[in-house]
């Protein structure tokens, strides 16, 4: 049995010819543009459930912002781009705890540029935290948007589908970056965001096949070919 020797080793991948670095938090760093990409933060998902009667622990926003701070501290990007569904619903802005709101605003201020891409959960991200809002954008050979578009050209990077993968022989499904080398779906970044198997039709249809998965383990990210994935 192999030792878990890849600790702290950083994986660098290539996406439509652009070098990218996936991070344990679920963020993707693009060194060429000093840009950090995150998808599906789903801030205030816990309180959305609480409002509808299920009193889930109220710490998800805190945890998600903490993760975000960790990724930013690691890469020190000039630009942070949130690929939509950053806020779980339109009421999130009202429910967010003051301390969490302050922390988020401070994070936004800490980088030169912050872009909120519009998502289906948050067509109009709240303005009070700063940053600019856009429907989509390009980054060299990459096109960033929330939902994958059928028949999109190579280079598309999006979120929305929350990919997760289960490796043969392992009992649990883990968050992952789904990719075929030409396009990518980022894992959901939010602490309460669920996962959808990369073998699900919704994800397969984006790639025309089951994609490979850069699986987020405890200590490292493991690129796993489609044929080793189950579930």
């Amino acid at each position, binding site marked *: 049995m192999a030792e878990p020797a890849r600790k702290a080793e950083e994986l660098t991948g290539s996406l439509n010819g652009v070098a990218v670095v996936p991070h344990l938090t679920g963020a993707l760093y693009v060194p060429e543009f000093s840009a950090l990409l995150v998808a599906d933060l789903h801030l205030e998902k816990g309180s959305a459930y609480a409002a509808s009667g299920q009193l889930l622990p109220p*710490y998800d926003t805190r945890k998600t912002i903490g993760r975000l701070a960790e990724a930013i501290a690691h890469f020190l990007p000039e630009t942070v781009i949130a690929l939509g569904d950053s806020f779980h619903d339109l009421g999130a802005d009202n429910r967010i705890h003051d301390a969490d709101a302050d922390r988020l605003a401070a994070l936004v201020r800490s980088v030169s540029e912050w872009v909120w891409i519009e998502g289906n959960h948050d067509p109009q991200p709240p303005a009070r935290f700063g940053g600019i809002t856009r429907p989509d954008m390009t980054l060299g050979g990459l096109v960033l948007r929330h939902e994958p578009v059928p028949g999109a050209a190579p280079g598309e990077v999006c979120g929305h589908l929350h990919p997760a993968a289960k*490796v043969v022989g392992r009992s649990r499904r883990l968050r992952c970056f789904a990719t075929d080398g030409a396009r990518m779906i980022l894992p959901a970044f939010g602490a309460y965001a669920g996962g959808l198997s990369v073998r699900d039709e919704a994800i397969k249809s984006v790639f025309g096949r089951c994609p490979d998965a850069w699986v987020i383990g405890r200590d490292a990210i493991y690129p796993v070919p489609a044929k080793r994935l189950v579930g």
Partner: protein
Amino acid sequence: MSAPILPDRFSQWFASRGWQARPHQLDMIGAAGAGEDALLIAPTGGGKTLGGFLPSLIDLADVAAEGPKRPYRLHTLYISPLKALSVDVARNLMIPVEEIGLDLRIETRTGDTPVSKRQRQRDKPPDILLTTPEQLALFCASPNARAFFADLKRIIVDEIHALAPQKRGDLLSLGMATLAQWAPEARRAGLSATVSDEGGLARWLTPQGDAPRFARIVRGMEGPKPQINILSSRERIPWSGHSGRHAMGEVYEAIRQARLSLIFVNTRSQAEHTFQELWRLNDDGLAIALHHGSLAVEQRRKVEAAMAAGKLKAVVCTSTLDLGIDWGDVDLVIQMGAPKGSARLIQRLGRSNHRLDEPSRALLAPANRFEHLECEAARAAVAEGVLDGEPLRAGALDVLAQHMTGRACGEPVKADDLFAEVTAAAPYAALTRAEFDNLMQFCSNGGYALDSYERFRRLICDREGFWKARNARVAQRHRMNVGTIIEAEMLPVRLKGRGGRGGRSLGEVEEWFIEQLAPGDTFVFAGEILEFQGIAENAALVTRSADPEPKVPAYQGGKFPLSTYLAKRVREIAHDPAQWHVLPDQVQDWLRLQKEKSRLPQPDDLLVETFPKHGKFYLVCYPFEGRLAHQSLGMLLTRRLERLRLRPTGFVANEYALAVWGLRNMADADMDALFSEDMLGDDLDAWLAESPLMKRTFKQCAIISGLIERRLPGHEKTSRQVTFSADLIYDVLREHDPDHILLQAAWRDAATGLLDIRRLGEALKRVKGHIHSIDLERVSPLAVPVMLEIGREAVYGEAQESILADAAEDLVSEMMGDG
């Protein structure tokens, strides 16, 4: 106290049948007359059910005389663990009721009872209502239940030994505590054939006060000792495995000679396998059927009806047929594989020969060499009448949270009153007020340290101090989620019909099992070999396969751990050659060889062997404490070995042994330190926190306590979504609110449940200072079975990360062009 008198019409009825009332039946009438709760322990076939009901029937004989226009008042509530048992008992009860000429209203109420009938029952309660613990919990959470139970006189709990040690038992005990408020006159009777902890159950049954209180214990006469034979196969007895294939010819012969056999197995996969194998041999075309919990309900009902009609020769079944339902005239019980506990064996034996004057007959068919020892131990225990059963434990906090929410949903209730009520239930007698208050907060607003959900409270407290549901929707949703049975996530299995859509349903299978299949894989289910085609519309689609050997090993059902008591007896047999004569030669040779090459485990020590094999170093120990406890031990040992830089890489456990392997020789490790009890401290905490078992336990607590709702009005959450979010909630809660009451609840559950920490702790204490290690040149005979499990078992914990690295290597080699 004067002798209880059986009313004339009752003695006449006994006489008309050529019987007379048994002493224990009269004692039950006596206990009722004295206003006492009573625990009746009597063997199957000893008139136990009638003993439970006689006091009610005598009372009701006067009521019935008032005629059909008498008011509708519930007199007796009967609760059993199985819907089917309630139906069966209702049917059997009708015989004396009709023959004595009592005009009684006897009805059942289960999850299957239509809404219209439920409503009618609420408006016009029957004299006797037969139901389940979940239905009682539902009453507790409904408005006006107090009035429904106002006239209740008796509560009868059947198969009490099966309910009490479980979360369902906690729920029932809380429900009865509520009934004690609503109907203070109601007395309780508990019925069982196999009670190991009589004092514990007698306490469980009766309301508690400042000092422990106990129900009166009434004992029935014992029947003749059962005849138990152990199949000593002429074939080669396997080292490991649970298939019992080698003995199947002899089992078939036994079936052929019996009138009707019940063939008990321990897991559903064994049931499937045994059924297949028997049909392979079935040249006589004997009517052999299959019965287990995953089969479609209609299919099970068909088998039950055929049994009752005497149309079957044998039924292969799991514990679904353990409890007291009698479908036919069974004259032989065959246990495939070891029975795991003497109480379980006696329970299963009770399914044959329901006549007190004839002994029941059983044939035990051990599946491997070790199981021969287990079967011998079980036979001796039954001969001596020693029972082992599940131990009672403190009530679970998640169940209490559910009950507390339910009470507030039913009617406004004051915290002080509710605290007094729940602590009268024996499992919660030691609950502190602080824990209770903590749970009340949890039920109301989640009980989080970050106090942010005040506006989303589910329960509110009014000015007079009454707790109630915030609105009708909260109460309705609570009632939809009542109960403590968390089914494994199941997918229906359907034959692929025309146009690729799902056709006939074959039953349900665990979702995780389906998830590991690729289209084209074959597996055994519902007595057939099936080919997996894919998942569509949330069902697994399959076709029938001609493949003679299924590719994927059958899925596991529940595995019972070897009982502590039987484990002790096994150790005693194993160490003492004078006791081996009862074992087959092959098993004796195996033990003799172990004595020669290594050492026999002694009753109170722990044998540890170390040896090299194929460039790896192995450590095998023999605690005999069951698979669950061994897995926990394996987890903790590998952490320690890791710290000692002995580089462990994996482990595997079976019922009596644990094997750990690694890259360095472990022979020189300080074994006393390695197996020291203190591993249950920090190591355990650190491991548990990350353990998938802990997450699974937490998920159950989250569902039972109502934090996560399974069913919402209008739509059901798919179980997959629940799984994922429960893990996320666990991680977040552990990081930000580590003292939260639900984490405490989960930790307590894990320690007694999936991880069997309690048992491991007792074992480590027992062997302290008695660890006997021996360094060998090669694998010992006793180690062979557990070594054979390597590769067959899933790996755990740390090794999972290695699997990822391993899988990643594949991509590398593919990239290099050699994949």
